[in-house]
């Protein structure tokens, strides 16, 4: 910008408000201190004890919340509904899974250097794409690089030819579907139907201990909070404002002299990388990754978490992920046949009656309350 803008832009909002920061700190303390103490040091009989089951469940849901956050960046703030985030999630998970498979070493059923499924397929050496799976550092890089590169290439071609709206959604779904078929094959070297499981250790340390589970839990919680800050910083920057402009009127943005391509491509790639990280955190906690994670249903569910919580609010998707998955783990135990009715009804109800999600609902109620009190005061 060489000439000063004649319009006075409003000052950027602070990263977080004062109460926002305090809530953030509280969340950080809960994740890093309270949960470990309740799980590890409070005796199992106590009412305050956090069971291992709850830790595993919350850890899993926090991974989903990261996905929902990533979905919100691309859907809530940029208006692009992706049905391919399940793929990026699974890709991150697979990269992590490959590393964990190599960590099994010779402890598999066949006592071979190679992962069991390769012995089963009578392979003699690792395929080329397993070359970096022995190194933890390379794995950490690949967790973001693989989804990032695939998203970048796909997004570049898609956004360049101005595919948008439902077309883009359907094309991403096709991409995910194609990838799922590919991963189902035995000869692609990803374990086929069964995927990867039976992990033993990570960084040489056993995986199935309480301490390791807690470590992963804390790691996931911290990642979620850091990503939340990052997303907050992104959407309130100038970059984020252009994204929202693209969402609301892409043609006008173009006429104003912006090319939407780099903006969309950047946020799309960042969103995919976040999903990859979520997948990588998810796999060691759940202990399995298979191509079922790429099914169309999973990707659409991510969208529903975001929608239930409230799009275009960053806290909404996280809340949504907790609500929907909490309900899922409760309903699939107590009344498994009702779970799909509930989920289906949730899809319909949210789109029809709660366009702004739970967070929008809460805001509305607050506003109404304020109005009532204001009306009553004079």
């Amino acid at each position, binding site marked *: 910008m060489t000439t000063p803008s004649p319009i006075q832009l409003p000052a950027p909002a602070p990263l977080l408000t004062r109460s926002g920061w305090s809530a953030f700190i509280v969340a950080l303390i809960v994740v890093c201190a309270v949960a470990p103490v309740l799980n590890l040091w409070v005796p199992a009989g106590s009412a305050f004890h956090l069971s291992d089951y709850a830790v595993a469940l919350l850890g899993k849901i926090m991974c989903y919340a990261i996905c929902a956050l990533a979905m919100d960046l691309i859907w809530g703030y940029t208006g692009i509904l992706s049905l391919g985030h399940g793929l990026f999630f699974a890709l991150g998970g697979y990269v992590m899974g490959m590393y964990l498979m190599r960590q099994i070493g010779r402890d598999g059923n066949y006592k071979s250097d190679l992962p069991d499924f390769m012995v089963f397929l009578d392979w003699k050496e690792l395929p080329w794409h397993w070359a970096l799976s022995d190194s933890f550092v390379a794995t950490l890089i690949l967790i973001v690089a693989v989804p990032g590169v695939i998203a970048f290439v796909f997004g570049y071609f898609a956004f360049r030819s101005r595919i948008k709206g439902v077309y883009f*959604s359907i094309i991403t779904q096709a991409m995910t579907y194609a990838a799922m078929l590919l991963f189902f*094959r035995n000869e692609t070297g990803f374990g086929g139907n069964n995927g990867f499981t039976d992990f033993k250790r990570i960084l040489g340390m056993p995986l199935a201990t309480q301490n390791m589970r807690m470590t992963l839990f804390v790691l996931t919680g911290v990642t979620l909070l850091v990503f939340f800050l990052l997303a907050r910083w992104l959407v309130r920057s100038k970059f984020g404002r252009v994204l929202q402009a693209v969402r609301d009127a892409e043609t006008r943005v173009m006429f104003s002299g912006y090319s939407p391509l780099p903006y969309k491509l950047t946020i799309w790639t960042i969103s995919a990388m976040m999903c990859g990280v979520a997948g990588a955190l998810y796999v060691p906690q759940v202990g399995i990754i298979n191509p079922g994670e790429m099914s169309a249903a999973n990707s659409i569910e991510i969208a529903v978490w975001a929608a239930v919580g409230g799009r275009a609010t960053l806290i909404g998707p996280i809340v949504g992920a907790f609500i929907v998955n909490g309900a899922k783990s409760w309903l699939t135990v107590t009344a498994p046949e009702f779970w799909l009715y509930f989920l289906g009804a949730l*899809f319909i109800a949210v789109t*029809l009656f709660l366009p702004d999600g739970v967070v929008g609902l809460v805001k509305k109620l607050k506003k109404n309350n304020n109005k009532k009190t204001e009306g009553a005061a004079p």
Partner: protein
Amino acid sequence: MPAARQSRFRGIPGLGSRMFRGPLLFQTPPACAMLSSIFSRLIACLLLCAAVQAHALTVEAARAMASGDTDERIAALQQAIATPDDATLAFIRAMGEDAVKITADKAIVMKDDKGYDPVSGAEVPVPDDAEDIVNNNRMRGEFDAALASLQLLSPDVAQRRTAIDALREETDEARLPLIEKALAAEKDVALQARLEAIRARILLASSDASQRLKAAQYLATSGNPGTRTVLLEQLRNEQDPQVKAAIQAALTAVEGRLQWGEKLAALFTGISLGSILLLVALGLAITYGLMGVINMAHGELMMIGAYATYVMQGVFQRYFPGAFDWYLVAAVPVAFMASALMGAVLERSVIRFLYGRPLETLLATWGISLMLQQLVRTVFGAQNVGVENPAWMSGGVQLMENLQLPWNRVIIVAFALAVLAGVAFLISKTRLGLFVRGVTQNRPIASCMGVNTARVDTYAFALGSGIAGLAGCALSQVGNVGPDLGQSYIVDSFMVVVLGGVGQLAGTVYAALGLGVLNKFLEGWTGAVLAKIAVLVFIIIFIQKRPQGIFAVKGRTAD
């Protein structure tokens, strides 16, 4: 006659060394062929002299066929069928059905607990010491083969044709005299040619090099996949260079012809898949293409049509078992109505609130699809249900030796075309079609002209849903019917609509058929899964080039 040949090698336990003698007898062609041809000529002469065919079966021959050492019985059987007559045929059939008893000097055919003489047909008393006939598997195989051979000489053309069909894989030289005889008697040109082909196949293994040469040259005109196997086998054993060259030439010719059949078969399965995609996509072309509603529950509406067909099958089984074959005809309108009704309910209750918000529609209809799947699971169970083809849809039409078109596929192609014609007519020629087009092109103006746009929306959506029901009805005839039925077609069908272009029926047709054929051709080349991936990648690339599909609607709309 695979059954007969197999049983010859199978033998039965306890036969010991005979098991090996059996095959040997038939693998030493000169002795056997000479013997049987001498016999057949001898008996033919006798017959000519006597000019009475009905008495070719003798009491001794019948006894010899019915009991004794298996090899001897087979030899007797071979002799008898070289000069067949009605009595022989009836007797062999009776033996095949175990309806024969044996006494010390003759065989008696049993029927309704009474004994009949196999030669004269007169009723005879059954002695108390008469034993039941004992047939091992090998013997049964021989009976079947003998009956098939005898049919070759039947005066009825249809019977001869079935007999020749049964013999098309035959390579046993023992059959040669019979085939020669049938060939001499055959008047039908087409059957003659087929008999000649069978003879050539047998002669290809002849010990006479000139015979083999002739056979190889003859076989070059064949298009039978079995011929290729025979030629390949002989090529491996062949010593004579001249014959070898002839066989090689014949093999090339046959393979060329076979390739045509295979290509046509791939084309047909492609068209068949394309017609199914077309049926699936036609409904979408209306709801998505014309109305712009992303209906992720489209697959579930198909599922409802398929289950409606299943219910109709049950109703016919229960109440009209006599007319069971026609249940499918009744199921077509029922499937249409069931899905259309469900579609109308969905439009009224959910979708009409979401017009102009495609992404929300996508999520809401996905929710509907989940609920419908669960509903079907609750009502019908999570397992697939069985839907039978009616009798008139089973079987197929044989176009080439290695190209058979199954009736159910042919009928579905025709059905898809009929539905297409119906939809095209409805959209372009009727009042409802006019309203639908009007409302989709310009809703406010259509409304100003007095069109009840909300009602038109409901009708149009119900129509698209009903077509999905028809697709489900058709799918129930070729695939599994289960709660997941819709899921497996939804990606494909959206691809068809996207590829064909929104708002286009013609585009949908070309895209569906094109994708079907492309998919099947790639499948023959790379395998099913890779073919599917290749097609998806192709579509993604294609959309890059032409984001509006094959046939883009020209316009100046901008948001």
